[in-house]
């Protein structure tokens, strides 16, 4: 019998080790971020992680301020935990990211780490990041793209001309863990998402050795319309259900 549902967030990341490469889904908002899986990684206290994703997160302190400021346009739950939690606790040694800097006059934990020389940054645009993850998922070693030629992104990369235009060779990024967020799952690991909370999550599914999905709800096999499944369960190894009420990040669960 296939059953990918696991009983706790701690169990879902129990085999993560120091130095792991961890893809973290989401775009930067609360709905698409696998917050409870991030919290479990924080509790596990694994170190020297390489995180891969759009942002390096805000961290606990800035999120509290942001939640208050954003209240005029969007109500946000108390349980918005993001990659900044791991960065702030010194668990991250490198980030492969598109949006490490805050779009505001504050420094995120990741920016502080970079400026203090404790964290390394590989900066990429979102197209190249997505494609590098998708390549890993599809067994493609590398690909060429014109995006980034003549900018910081070109540094150290092979340049080759196609149709008269310079392209960069970009290699697949394979992770040890993809931590993603979805709306509904079945026990095969098939996933559907809600609105723009889809974003990077399906791209990371299958791009790592282990993909863990944090979901709002598990449904019976057959309840997800096969025409509408976004992520086939083939890409997903573990599924964990979010609690109905917000829980503190440092509580075992």
């Amino acid at each position: 019998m296939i059953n990918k549902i696991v009983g706790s967030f701690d169990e879902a990341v129990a085999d993560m080790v120091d130095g792991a490469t961890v893809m973290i889904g989401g775009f930067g908002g609360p709905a698409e971020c696998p917050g409870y899986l991030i919290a479990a990684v924080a509790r596990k206290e694994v170190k020297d992680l390489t995180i891969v994703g759009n942002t390096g997160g805000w961290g606990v302190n800035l999120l509290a301020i942001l939640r208050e400021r954003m209240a005029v346009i969007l109500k946000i739950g108390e349980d918005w935990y993001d990659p900044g939690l791991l960065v702030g606790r010194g668990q991250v040694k490198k980030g492969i990211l598109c949006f490490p800097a805050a779009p505001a006059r504050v420094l995120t934990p990741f920016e502080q780490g970079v400026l203090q020389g404790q964290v390394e940054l590989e900066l990429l645009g979102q197209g190249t990041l997505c494609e590098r993850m998708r390549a890993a998922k599809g067994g493609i070693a590398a690909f060429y793209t014109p995006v980034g030629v003549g900018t910081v992104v070109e540094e150290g990369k092979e340049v080759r001309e196609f149709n008269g235009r310079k392209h960069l060779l970009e290699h697949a990024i394979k992770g040890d863990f993809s931590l993603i967020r979805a709306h509904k799952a079945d026990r095969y690991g098939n996933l559907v998402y809600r609105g723009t909370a889809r974003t990077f999550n399906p791209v990371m599914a299958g791009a790592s050795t282990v993909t863990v999905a944090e979901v709002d709800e598990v449904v019976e096999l057959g309840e997800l319309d096969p025409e509408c499944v976004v992520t086939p369960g083939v890409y997903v190894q573990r599924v964990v259900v979010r609690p109905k009420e917000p829980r503190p990040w440092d509580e075992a669960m």
Partner: protein
Amino acid sequence: MAGERLDEQTMAIRAAKEFQDGMIINLGVGIPTFCSNFVPPDREILFHSENGVVGFGPIIDNPDDADENLINAGAQPISSKPGMAIMDHAESLCIIRGGHVDITVLGVVQVSEKGDLANYTIPGKQIGSLGGGQDLAFCAKKVIALTTFTTKEGDAKVVKECTQPLTAPRCVDRIITDIAVMDVRPEGLVLREVAPGWTAEEVQGLTDAKIIVPPDVEEMTLL
């Protein structure tokens, strides 16, 4: 004495004039986001946001109506609209990288007379974020740089050579500012329009970029 400078909303109105019926448009953060409020009424435009949505409705400003599952790339809640499509981020970036975006309007740190765009970082002040902006700058069919002509301190943002790190070289097609509209052409930076009360000489006086002034420069209009 030069005329007044356009405010940010008016700059956005001028930029939105560029949007033609049926176009796919992606707006960068900052002043460009205001453009979505000023689409000419006779035109059907599909706005694309790189986090994975195309064809969405207006930005929602009441938290009671907002849904955290429907936001744009600036994390602003947006409204659903008939015909809207949701996609994952890789698909969304294929829309950009495959050249399916007709116009992108991007903010500016510096833009050069050759169309080089610097807009992702100011070294020493921040570490910088490329987001989806680099993909847009490289791959959109038309790149419009929307910016004040100078910084608050009076330094030119339209320059001969960018001194800040580039987001993309030779990518900008049109520069719309608070005092002038210019096109980046093979022959150089060509003045098309000046804001009311401004002359070509006054615009040229604010930058070391060489501005080519053809005989048919017009006064900027919003309709």
